[in-house]
């Protein structure tokens, strides 16, 4: 394919040949809403989510080291929220992963959610496609997992690792909200601290109360002393999502695409005006936007 004839195509070729600058620039272009024409690819993706501060970034650092040692090329996309007030964002995940700051086999990119229609999530697909096309064989996406928008981001990874800490019990809360249904594997991190085993046990017994036969494995790990990491990687490598969970993810993808299409449609302002004055119903508004 004659990718190289346009400036964008040249950038893609350059990224493909290993130029990090070009790859980084292309990811920005995608973030700005540009569409790249790429051959069909199947990226390997792992979503890592969980409450703030449980050690997601530190744990990802360990996974990165493991995979690099095994000859993989690992890319990490770490998503943090933009401040709704200022629009700014503090992207501090990479400070926990110094293994990502050198070496040719790892690429790390911080992403802010910005005001993207449908969330940043619908951009993750083209980003992981690009990374895969450029030879990145393991792609890890970190998001803070609380609330609807974050669930949606996780729906863009083919396998999902949910992380919890020793003294939070937040995952039990997550279960109430249904978010836990997206997890293929659960890791209770900070096993070097008291309370971690108890947290893992209570998550297990809580999961067993349901009638799902395909329970996610619960792993006890420590990103600090590396205990349980090898076993966790093996579990991640062999995990396959049950069909119904895949279906849930596809549903999320559909909803996110729907949202962004709706929010980007031309007549939106007019329809919102009419809704405000009450001259049309919500159903009529949708019909008009999608006609």
């Amino acid at each position: 394919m004659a990718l190289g004839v346009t400036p964008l195509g040249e950038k893609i070729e350059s990224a493909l040949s290993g130029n990090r600058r070009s790859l980084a620039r292309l990811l920005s272009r995608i973030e700005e809403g540009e569409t790249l024409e790429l051959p069909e690819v199947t990226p390997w993706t792992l979503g890592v989510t969980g409450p703030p501060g449980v050690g997601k970034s530190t744990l990802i650092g360990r996974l990165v080291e493991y995979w690099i040692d095994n000859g993989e090329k690992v890319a990490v996309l770490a998503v943090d929220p933009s401040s709704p007030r200022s629009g700014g964002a503090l992207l501090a995940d990479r400070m926990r992963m110094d293994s990502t700051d050198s070496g040719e086999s790892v690429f790390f990119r911080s992403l802010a959610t910005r005001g993207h229609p449908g969330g940043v999530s619908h951009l993750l697909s083209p980003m992981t496609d690009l990374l895969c096309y450029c030879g990145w064989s393991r792609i890890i996406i970190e998001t803070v997992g609380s609330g609807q928008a974050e669930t949606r981001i996780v729906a863009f990874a083919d396998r999902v690792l949910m992380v919890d800490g020793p003294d939070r019990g937040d995952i039990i809360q997550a279960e109430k909200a249904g978010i836990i249904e997206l997890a293929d594997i659960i890791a209770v991190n900070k096993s070097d601290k008291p309370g971690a085993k108890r947290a893992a046990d209570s998550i297990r017994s809580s999961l067993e109360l349901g009638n799902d036969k395909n329970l996610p494995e619960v792993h006890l790990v420590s990103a600090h002393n590396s205990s349980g990491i090898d076993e966790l990687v093996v579990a991640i490598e062999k995990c396959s999502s049950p069909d119904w969970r895949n279906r849930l993810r596809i549903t999320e993808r559909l909803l996110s695409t729907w949202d962004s299409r709706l929010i980007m449609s031309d007549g939106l302002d007019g329809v919102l005006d009419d809704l405000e004055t009450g001259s049309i119903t919500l159903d009529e508004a949708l019909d008009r936007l999608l006609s």
Partner: protein
Amino acid sequence: MRIVVAKPGLDGHDRGAKVIARALRDGGHEVVYTGLRRTPSEIIRIVTDEDVSALGLSTLSGAHDVLIPKICDGLREAGLGDVMVFAGGIIPNRDREFVFEQGVRAIFGPGSRTDEILSFLDACSDRIEKGEPIGVGQSAGWRWE
């Protein structure tokens, strides 16, 4: 703007860098914070992967005279001459001229007000928009004093 705030070298003073990272976020910027003890080559690598337009260096340990030139040279060598570099922390008056000569556009010492730093970044955005080069590898001249 998308900005990396970095702590180069063995300097363990991170309070100022964290204050600045927060303030820039509240001023509407996307800030990637590197954490402590990054080498010049790690910082160049982070600037590359994160595709930022500016790099803010925080140094309080007295090693600015070695680290800042290394980082600025490294950026130019890596083809990142369009990245704007600014600095803060403890940089004695006698060293300011030398640091500016490396291509640094502003130096903010102790007691600097965040609104002044934000005004500086606004001025940078304006210049970039107008096509006036302020990158570390682009014609020197303009500086914020």
